């Protein structure tokens, strides 16, 4: 009863890189995405694995991706933003109307100056809705679900008021040809480049900056964040402004792509963005999530839809198949993570 054995505590070692990568929330769900692409490729190699298909899937997803980057920040704060789709529409409308007004009623042949002003107006309109949302949520302490459900309706109503209920259909050709359908660097669509840049900035902001850290802190424990001197109100407002501004940008992109304001098209963008974000490993209870996860989460349904259309799955089966893959993907991801057994 007394030999002293030295068992030094293994203190403060860092987990090796490989383990940390395997532990990343997004690894396994990324694998699911690759498996899906491979599966479609095997079923119908000639039609699926084409550059053109890659291009179109990327383009069609780029608007949703921009929305989802903003949504990721919002959900990490344990909030939600149901208004992104209609704020997108509203921003497209204000932008299009401004461009028209600057060009004497029809902006079809307007130049770059007008287009740039249009872009600024779109982002500003989105940010304004974000400011309203954020203020009501952070300052007046109204649940995000109620606030953004309200602005979901109100933004569309406002857009319809501005246009009298029909789409604005004159969009500068410069815009449509450059951002909407142009490509750069030998075939990369400009829409996609735009989305990549936005996503990269979003990922950087979330992962490495103080803004990102506060986002996690607020979502993880709002009271704690408050007590350590973070201005939670200000930060929440900023996060919703960011989401709104990105929705505005998405509205501008959507308008460039469709060359019209597509009033009726965005009723379920909110759920799609939320689904992509959650699928990518962001927790609706806040504090946990990543932009790279969201990217993968957004692409899974997109790839499924495109793949099913190409291989000709019956249209009524498609939502069922998407549902099965969605659930299975998350289940697989959870299980892998549980197998790693970290928390």
């Amino acid at each position, binding site marked *: 009863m007394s030999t002293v054995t030295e068992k030094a505590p293994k203190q403060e070692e*860092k*987990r090796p890189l490989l383990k940390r990568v395997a532990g990343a929330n997004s690894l396994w769900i990324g694998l699911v995405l690759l498996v899906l692409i491979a599966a479609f490729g095997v079923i119908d190699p000639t039609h699926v694995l084409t550059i053109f298909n890659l291009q179109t899937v990327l383009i069609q997803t780029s608007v949703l991706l921009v929305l989802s980057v903003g949504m990721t920040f919002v959900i990490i704060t344990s909030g939600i933003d149901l208004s992104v789709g209609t704020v997108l529409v509203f921003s497209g409308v204000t932008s299009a109307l401004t461009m028209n007004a600057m060009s004497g009623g029809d902006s079809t042949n307007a130049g770059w100056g007008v287009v740039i002003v249009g872009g600024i107006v779109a982002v500003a309109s989105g940010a304004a809705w974000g400011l309203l949302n954020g203020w009501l949520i952070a300052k007046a302490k109204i649940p995000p679900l109620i606030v953004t459900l309200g602005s979901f309706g109100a933004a569309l109503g406002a857009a319809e008021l501005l246009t009298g209920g029909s789409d604005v259909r004159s969009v500068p050709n410069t815009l449509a040809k450059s951002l909407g359908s142009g490509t750069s660097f030998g075939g990369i669509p400009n829409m996609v480049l735009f989305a990549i840049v936005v996503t990269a900035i979003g990922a950087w*902001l979330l992962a490495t*900056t103080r803004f990102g850290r506060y986002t996690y802190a607020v979502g*993880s424990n709002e009271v704690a964040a408050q007590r*350590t*001197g973070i201005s939670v109100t200000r930060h929440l407002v900023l996060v919703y402004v960011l989401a709104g501004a990105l929705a505005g940008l998405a509205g501008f992109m959507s308008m460039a792509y469709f060359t019209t304001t597509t009033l009726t098209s965005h009723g379920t963008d909110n759920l799609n963005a939320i689904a992509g974000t959650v699928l990518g490993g962001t927790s609706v209870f806040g504090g946990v999530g990543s932009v790279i996860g969201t990217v993968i989460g957004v692409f899974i349904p997109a790839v499924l839809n495109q793949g099913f259309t190409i291989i000709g799955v019956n249209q009524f089966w498609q939502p069922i198949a998407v549902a099965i893959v969605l659930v299975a993907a998350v289940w697989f991801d959870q299980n892998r993570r549980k197998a790693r057994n970290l*928390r």
Partner: protein
Amino acid sequence: MSEPLLEARSLVKHYGSVEALRGASFQVAAGEVVSLIGDNGAGKSTFIKCLSGAEQPDSGEILFEGKQIHLDSPTAARSLGIETVYQDLAVAPDLDPAANLYLGREIKRKGLLGALGMLDKKEMRRKASEEFSRLGVTLQSVDVPIAALSGGQRQSVAVARSVVWASKVVFMDEPTAALGVVQRERVLDVIRKVRDQGIGVVLISHNMPEVLSVSDRVEVLRLGTRVARFKASEATLEDLVGAMTGALVQEDVA
């Protein structure tokens, strides 16, 4: 007792029909350790929340360095150099210990990236390790979220955070409750060191031997009012328990 650094006069705080504070008063001077003791539910945590800006009292006044102040948020208190360890640990469970230590006071990178808000995580982690070993906090792994730490480890992180940043007053609401024997001694040492730097320390504890060993003075709260004050060197365990249970009341202290 020297000139009080922070003073509270007749604070009242209601939660609905519950009267948590019924006119409680309190003083702490620079360079002294004051223990605030009292039964469960006596109002100690509420009192400290009012003095650190986490809650607003319904009435009463707070003076800091002789001037009346209004603490409408914890930030206001922190900017005066007042730090707090809350009983319901105010940590962000999804962040790692280093991030929690620097929360609200992040170190940014040098140059442009820093101006853009980019953090110097390595530096923070390094300094955090230093602080933790200085305070004797042993963690098996630094890059796991706080939620994965043991109860005592979590509490040690919260204590470390307050003493690293305080410049005038530190409030500690039961900082040693979950700590092991060694860690507890370390925290008491730290409290003494902090005191010696001229900072006022307010300690809440239910451990009477600890209170008597580390404090300069003891103030006793009962049912939301101050019922007794002691010099620690003159008080006995029986005095303290008597005051807390209501067996002993000093007439002039409320």
